[in-house]
């Protein structure tokens, strides 16, 4: 800010401004004066190059779904079925049958029949791998890039890089997250501006799988509803406030912070009207609710999460992280996995269908992944343990090549062996799809430039449409 800012112009603009003063106009003024970054980091920014998608819906399968029971079909495993490995451990074929779907013939297990219908839209990565096979670290690494240090989450980096398109809504929502395994770090901004942090919807406090997260139905974001005064009264009060603020601004001569505050109230007033509206999925037509399995058991909760995500993205939210779990079946995987698949499969398929119908599919990147996978082995409790060396993720929507099955695990589905994709590569590719170069998206903190992928990450161009 070395040039003289057009103080008089901006001030008089504000003085003339009535309540309906458009945020876009003000945003424009603030950007011109170079004040934008200081006061509102959420204003839209230019990406590094032409993006293939504008927003992200990250479907996070907490706990690590088993790849050989979902999207990584391994016939060889059937041959080695029940081969004893000692200690009650043995190779174990998937108890679920695989069917080939779509023109691409993608094999999908009977746990995910609805997702299977969109096989030709899925870009399945069978060769994922990560650094550590321990939930808390692996979860935090999948969502922030680092398990060792406190770093901004992927969503925060995205919002930092691109801003957000609807100033009346947060740029980043995290739905059904929990306090364990890193807590708010999973959608936190670390050293990035705090406005880039995820707004938690229905976060809950159980790291223990026995605790059932509260239902998303009837949830409301704190402080978006005034329970004391009517909307009319609030408007009057806001008018009073802004007139006092403007009066003070006139006395100050120039005060960018105060201008920012004035602006923030106008936005907040609209946000409190718009945000509950975005979250209120019940106003959707019956046909749409049905598509997500809303008001039906057991799909209601994740269905609501998915539909909220679609509504948010449609309204201009940049990044939505959905959480469902806990896919951690060390015991009786044949009970646990079907239960979670039943909760999430239909809603995910509904989301794809809905995005397509509304013309949003090509602008939205969907990512489906756990923090790691599971081995092709049953333990003595008929469950599968942890596996960081191979797992499956899939992409769909903007920028992702549909009908692709990329990379390989070994013939038993244990370790990623061919065209390996590390989670840093996944992050680099996600940013690339959004028009951001993961090596250029940096933030100076504590004397050095940080990035999401640290010194790692390669964009996997083969995954791009």
């Amino acid at each position, binding site marked *: *800010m070395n040039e*003289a800012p057009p*103080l008089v112009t901006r001030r008089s603009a504000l003085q003339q401004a009535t309540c309906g003063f458009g945020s876009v106009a003000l945003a424009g003024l603030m950007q011109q004066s170079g004040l934008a970054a200081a006061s*509102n*980091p*959420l204003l839209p920014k230019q990406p590094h190059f032409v993006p293939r998608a504008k927003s992200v819906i990250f479907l996070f399968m907490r706990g690590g779904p088993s790849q050989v029971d979902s999207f990584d079909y391994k016939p060889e495993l059937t041959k080695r079925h029940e081969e004893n490995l000692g200690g009650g451990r043995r190779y174990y074929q998937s108890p679920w049958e695989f069917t080939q779907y779509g023109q691409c013939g993608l094999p999908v297990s009977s746990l995910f029949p609805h997702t299977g219908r969109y096989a030709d839209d899925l870009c399945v990565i069978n060769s994922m791998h990560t650094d550590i096979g*321990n*939930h*808390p*670290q692996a*979860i935090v690494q999948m969502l922030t890039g680092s398990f060792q240090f406190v770093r901004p989450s992927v969503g925060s980096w995205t919002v930092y890089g691109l801003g957000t398109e609807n*100033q009346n809504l947060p740029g980043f929502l995290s739905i059904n997250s*929990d*306090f*364990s*395994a*890193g*807590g708010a770090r999973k959608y936190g901004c*670390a050293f990035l*501006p*705090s*406005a880039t942090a995820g707004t938690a919807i229905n976060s809950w*406090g*159980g*790291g*223990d799988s026995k*605790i059932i997260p509260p239902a998303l139905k009837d949830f409301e974001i*704190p*402080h978006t*509803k*005034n*329970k004391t*005064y009517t909307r009319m009264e609030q408007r*009057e*009060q*806001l008018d*009073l*406030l802004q007139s*006092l*603020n403007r009066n*003070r601004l006139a*006395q*100050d*001569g*120039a*005060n960018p*912070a*105060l201008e920012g*505050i*004035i*602006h*923030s*109230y106008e936005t*907040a007033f609209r*946000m*409190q009207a718009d945000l509950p509206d975005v979250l209120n999925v019940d106003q959707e037509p019956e046909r749409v609710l049905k598509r997500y399995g809303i008001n039906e058991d057991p799909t209601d909760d994740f269905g609501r999460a998915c539909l909220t995500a679609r509504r948010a993205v449609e309204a201009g939210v940049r990044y939505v992280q959905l959480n469902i779990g806990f896919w951690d079946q060390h015991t009786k995987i044949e009970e646990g996995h079907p239960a979670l698949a039943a909760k999430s499969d239909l809603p995910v398929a509904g989301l794809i269908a809905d995005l397509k119908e509304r013309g949003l599919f090509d602008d939205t990147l969907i990512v489906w992944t756990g923090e790691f996978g599971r081995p092709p082995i049953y333990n003595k409790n008929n469950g599968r343990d942890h596996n960081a060396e191979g797992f499956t993720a899939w992409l769909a929507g903007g920028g992702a090549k549909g009908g692709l099955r990329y990379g390989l695990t070994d013939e038993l589905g244990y370790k990623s062996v061919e065209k390996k994709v590390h989670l840093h590569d996944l992050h680099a590719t996600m940013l690339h799809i959004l028009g951001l170069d993961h090596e250029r998206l940096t933030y*100076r903190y*504590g*004397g*050095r430039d940080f990035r999401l992928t640290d010194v790692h990450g390669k964009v996997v161009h083969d995954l791009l449409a």
Partner: protein
Amino acid sequence: MLSAGAWANEGVEFFESRIRPVLAAKCYNCHSTKATKVKGDYLLDTRDGIRKGGVSKRDAVIPGDVEGSQLIEAIRYRNEELQMPPKGKLSAAEISAFEQWIAMGAPDPRDGVSRLPREIAAENHWAWKRPKPSELPRVKNAKWPKDAIDNHVLARLESEGMYPNRDADRRTLIRRATLELTGLPPSVKAVAEFLGDPDPTRKAFGRVVDRLLADQGFGVRWGRHWLDVARYGESSGYSRNMLYPYAWRYRNWVIDSFNDDKPYDQFVREQIAGDLLPSNSYEEKEKQILGTAFLTVGAKTFNEGQRLLFDLNCADDQIDVTCRAFLALTANCARCHDHKYDPIPTRDYYAMTGIFMSSRNLAGSETNVRDEHAEAYPLGPEGFGILEKIKEAKAKADKEQAFYMDLVKKRNELRDPLVKKGIDWKKNPTPELKEAEAKVQAQQAVVKETKGAIPGPPNYAMAVVEGLDAKEFEAFEAFLKTEKEEIAEMKKAKKRPKNPTPERPPIKDSPLFDKGLHDSPKDLVPRGALSLFGYRSQTIGTNESGRLQLAEWITDERNPMTARVYVNRVWHHLFGRGLVETVDNFGVLGSQPSHPELLDQLALDFMKQGWSTKKLVRRIMLSRTYMQSSAHCEEFAAKDPDAALRWRFAPQLLEGEAIRDSVLFVSGRLDPVHMTTSQVEEISKQQALGRQREIGRRDYYMKDVTWDVKHRSVYLPMTRGVIPDMLAIFDAADPNLVVGARKLTIVPTQALYLANSAMVIGESKHAAKRVMAAPAEDRIDAAYELAYARLANETERATLQKFVNSAGANEKTWSRICQTLICSGEFRTIY
């Protein structure tokens, strides 16, 4: 290869005639000290440089080894990614000359060490040099300055053709000072007193400042500033978020240190080596040792299974916080490689690692993997002795209990036959039974007494103490071995084994870990402080961790950083911007001081005045620079929008804590209590099983914690990942990071909080009651005085009167007005 003599003649001649001309013509442009930009960190203009290579870390010229030399690979142009010179391949004759030259043993007369321009710049960096006293700068407007600070500021302004602002009025001054020193607005009474003071403003203001510095609120607010830097948090954060039940004692230690005006050098020493400082009583020792929690209150990855990696990460956190907080250095960049910009070699990093790895972290946090952190420091006259005492007393009580059980058994043997026969044994005992019963009775009293003699559990603190010396370690290892065997036996017998005694670190040097990888240890590095200031830390004995020497080294008057960094922090808190803007980084990548001589002078005077924070604060606040108005000036704002040159007092935003506390102050409901506990300790006490003290585990923490309390914000639970909503919304410092300067944002969620939260609406109702206590015609002024410490101007009065007229002069209307004032920009701005 050539013989030594021939080398000198023939070889050098070959170099001079065939090699040097090519280097000069084709390479020096990018690869010499004179290059405008050195490429790939490779310098060819000395023997040392041409051989050692650049960023690729490969030897570029290996005498005698043509194929192994990377330089040859580059000039041959066979590797597509490495072709030099980039503008065109050398001629075949030239390439062959280089091959021949290397085969000869690469004779090269060019002595000297090859240093990159950036390395040279780093060595000359201003911050490594000791502060110099300077003459009082001469100014044109000689009447303006009241303190040397003002001379420095004014001289700079005049050199830019600028001049300072007018003095601020008394209302502005007292509000500014009260908010900055205590985090609360001034009371109506305090304002009236100051306004009525007949003395000149500066003198009267001096009294205000003295009163505020003596207020307990000073420690609350300035303690919180330090807690930001110390990355204070009440849980381990990261992946397994375990509570730190005793962290609050460090919080209070910090608050008390500011209120007691503990000399800053002592404040530093206690945080690094409080357990090792001389003391005259256990109370004094305790006060000092509480400071060491600074080292262990950081985030920890408690479920890291590899002990060495876990310990290295802890040490990394300790090096980071020590160097950033006291020295504004990013030393932990040197964990994996020599610091890229500052002269901090990896060896220095591991010299410090050894110091911290030789210390025991008593975090007092139960964990599932790292049990040594469950230990805490027992408070009280006996220190660790009390634990022994409890153990002995318990053993004694157990013994007496066992003896009692024996006696009971013997008695029963005598009693039961009588009972069988239906004889009332109490009335008609046999003589033996009578005697046995008497023994039982007597022993029962003994049991009661010995049980009663078990000392109660002590209070605990978080702390860091020395690791074990060689002798202690040997004994401890032997003990662990027998314990391991015991545990194995118990397991074999399918008995539930006791928790193993936590491992305790021995005092020893750390190896240098290549590239920071814990599985690549290299040579041991002797423990010590950094080397970049030209003086070293004192010798560290074999039985000492070295923390004491580190503390002495940091607070040594020869240390160019310690005083500078601190006076800059104080300046930052008073003006909202440091003389060095990057308060946590004075390294090469940090910003330059806006007034270098002033910074030096303040640092020197600060040390001379006994490192007193209060004296420093007072001095700055009574400077004319500080007492300026914040009035805007179009012309100067255009030149210097952030008032880095201090042509005005730039308005600042209040932090979340101060906003919350101010709201409670205005409503009259602020609880002034100095909390000597924390909800975190209370909650963790309720947990029968320490291992369940994990946030999120079984939901208990969130269920038990109460946010709706009325005391100062600094006492609210600050667990990592779960900090009070309101503070998070207003940009509280992330307890995972060293935060010397908060980045305050303005976002709609803050507006939503102030407009809609039950807290603000509720407190506004209470504020309204206070306003309505005034006569109707004075209420507007009463509200303004309460919220802003000023009276309303005509426009404001008219606006509010109109609102009252239309909404009705009732409590609801006044609640809405009070809330509006709280929501306003002015309420959260320091002018």
